[in-house]
């Protein structure tokens, strides 16, 4: 009897130690885009002190002028330093003063969030540069540790943020053939997206999974004798999500670039962490083939006929559980749909239509989840884009959805004063939340903070203006909020204002707000 009790105690201690190890595994690395493996984009109270009761004291603390009007990097705070991609460089700034500490040059624009891990006693940063691959650099010395083209094909584009899990980095890969298709002499299209697992210490490829395994074959001719190929596309635009219980990595894909389409476009994948073997794939939109040649003309030789709706999964999936303990994978699509998926087998639990969708419609870049209230915050952009826009009325704004029921708890739309392209009121940027506030921004440059439970607008700040910066005689201009969005850290809110891709308003302002104690 005594031995049984002792054994039971030992087993409990072992289980506790295992849990601590699992938590420590997470804590010794910073989780890039999603702030944790599950991509919640949620800061707990020990990491963010902003709340609905003090947000009115939020004041602009300092501004740094980035070197690009199209900043596309998500910052990382490590100790007293702030790291951010700045055009073809990764820059380290002093968190309190904004003074530049060092800058590391890359061959192409830094386009992702930055992850951190402590390897053999050294703090290392991991990120992707859009045109060439994944970097690992020292956080202290601005020194390259390794660079990996991640199995690069010449058309590879690195847009999704890599995810650090233990000794591996999962790097999403998209394809620039979406744009090459505009060239009439180009044989569209052959390449597929991919997820690549790299060794965290060396950058060596552990495994490489193409989203389309079937090789592309000739399917016809375009301009004169220029051939057309398929299947192609299914790029991976967003950060992957890690399931530590099932040892799976989840990620979403975009549309095909040519017809006939594959079964893996506009889909959510679940793959084995250690091998990349596919556990399940669930496709949500069949036959979606689209590329930028269709923007030039639907009759372009390289535009698929018929052209698809271009309803990618650009937002990373979010893993959580319902109030009764059932795990759920939530995926937002550019179609305007929010899907709830069973992570065991990929079956669809429910789908909620939140927006009309389109080329730039629906859920564009990301969502955030509040595990305290079991609400997911879904930004809907729904801007009109010719020729592909959903048939329903636009529903741009931020929508809070109960993940147990799929019902909308609240919706908020900010009146930007106009509905032209450069001040459309829909939300394209990824939100971030803590227990009481959720932060988004508009294309018009309005930075907005809502109450997480009621959707009440608590605070706003207009950023489409000129700012003085930490550097003497250097000014920065604000613009649209898009892509990655804000970071909440302790008493601060850190965000870049400006993004001039797809007709938005450019800007180069890195804004750091803090609670004004006075």
């Amino acid at each position, binding site marked *: 009897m005594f031995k049984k009790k002792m054994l039971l105690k030992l087993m409990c201690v072992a289980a506790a130690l295992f849990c601590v190890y699992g938590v420590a595994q997470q804590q010794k690395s910073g989780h890039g885009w999603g702030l944790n493996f599950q991509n919640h984009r949620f800061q707990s109270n020990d990491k963010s002190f902003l709340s609905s009761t003090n947000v009115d004291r939020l004041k602009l603390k300092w501004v740094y002028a980035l070197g690009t009007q199209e900043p596309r990097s998500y910052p990382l705070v490590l100790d007293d330093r702030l790291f951010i991609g700045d055009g073809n460089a990764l820059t380290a700034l002093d968190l309190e003063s904004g003074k530049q500490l060092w800058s590391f040059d890359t061959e192409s624009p830094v386009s992702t969030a930055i992850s951190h891990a402590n390897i053999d006693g050294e703090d290392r940063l991991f990120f992707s540069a859009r045109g060439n691959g994944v970097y690992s650099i020292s956080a202290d010395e601005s020194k390259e540790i390794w660079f990996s083209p991640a199995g690069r094909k*010449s058309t590879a584009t690195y847009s999704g943020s890599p995810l650090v899990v233990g000794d591996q980095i999962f790097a999403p890969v998209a394809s*620039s053939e979406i744009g090459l298709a505009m*060239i009439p*002499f180009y044989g569209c299209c052959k390449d597929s997206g991919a997820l690549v697992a790299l060794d965290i210490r060396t950058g060596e490829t552990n495994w490489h999974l193409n989203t389309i395994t079937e090789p592309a074959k000739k399917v016809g001719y375009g301009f004169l004798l220029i051939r057309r190929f398929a299947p192609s596309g299914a790029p991976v635009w967003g950060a992957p999500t890690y399931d530590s219980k099932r040892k799976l990595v989840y990620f979403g894909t975009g549309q095909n670039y040519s017809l006939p389409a594959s079964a893996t476009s506009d889909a959510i994948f679940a793959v084995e962490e250690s091998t990349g073997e596919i556990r399940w794939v669930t496709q949500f939109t069949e036959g979606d083939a689209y590329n930028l040649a269709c923007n030039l003309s639907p009759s372009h030789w390289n535009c698929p006929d018929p052209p698809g709706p271009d309803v990618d999964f650009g937002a990373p999936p979010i893993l959580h559980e319902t109030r009764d303990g059932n795990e759920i994978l939530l995926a937002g699509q550019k179609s305007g749909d929010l899907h709830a998926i069973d992570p065991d087998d990929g079956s669809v639990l429910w789908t909620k239509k939140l927006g009309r969708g389109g080329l730039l419609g629906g859920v564009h870049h990301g969502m955030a989840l509040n595990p305290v209230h079991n609400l997911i915050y879904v930004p809907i952009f729904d801007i009109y884009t010719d020729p592909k826009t959903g048939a329903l009325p636009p529903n741009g704004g931020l929508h809070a959805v109960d993940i147990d029921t799929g019902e909308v708890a609240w919706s908020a739309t900010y009146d930007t004063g106009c509905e032209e392209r450069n001040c459309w009121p829909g939300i394209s940027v990824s939100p971030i939340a803590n227990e009481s506030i959720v932060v988004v921004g508009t294309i018009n440059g309005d930075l907005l903070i809502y109450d997480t439970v009621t959707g009440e607008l608590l605070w706003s700040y207009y950023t489409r203006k000129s700012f003085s910066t930490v550097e003497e005689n250097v000014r920065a201009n604000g613009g649209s909020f898009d892509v990655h969005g804000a970071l909440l850290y302790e008493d601060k809110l850190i965000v870049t204002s400006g993004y001039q891709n797809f007709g938005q308003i450019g800007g180069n302002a890195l804004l750091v707000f803090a609670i004004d104690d006075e």
Partner: protein
Amino acid sequence: MSEFVLATHGRRLFAALLDFVLVIVGLIVVLATTRLLESSEPWTNDLSFNVRIFAAGALTYLILNGLLLIYRGQTIGKFVLGIRIVITGTDRRPPIWVLVVRSLFIPPVFVAIMFNDWGGTVFIVAFVWYGTILLKHRKCLHDYLVRTDVIGHVNTKGSSTQPV
């Protein structure tokens, strides 16, 4: 005794413009049939792109003007405008190697400059290269390099002007 009348600026200009349009149209057809730009490689590798464009440009030029150059020292544009390339000081067609260097080397260089979007460089280079035609001898830089002229007609002493 023969007197070689240099081609007028106007004829050279219009001949060049006609040749330019024809080469562009021909280049499009050549690129679409040879598939030199079909793969992703030239669109992601500058050297590969320039080599392929050069090759396509040269092939187009040869297809359009090869025979006329060999037999008459003319491009299509020069044929239409009644002017031809000769060895300086004579009315003789230059050796084929001279025509090759003169015709194939220079135009693709300009095409490569334009496709590489080197900004105003192409205009500066064009001004330097062709601006010398405004001088007394009406020679472009390539005419100086390979010792050629472009003539309109030949005056033979004691007889009426004979068109070329």
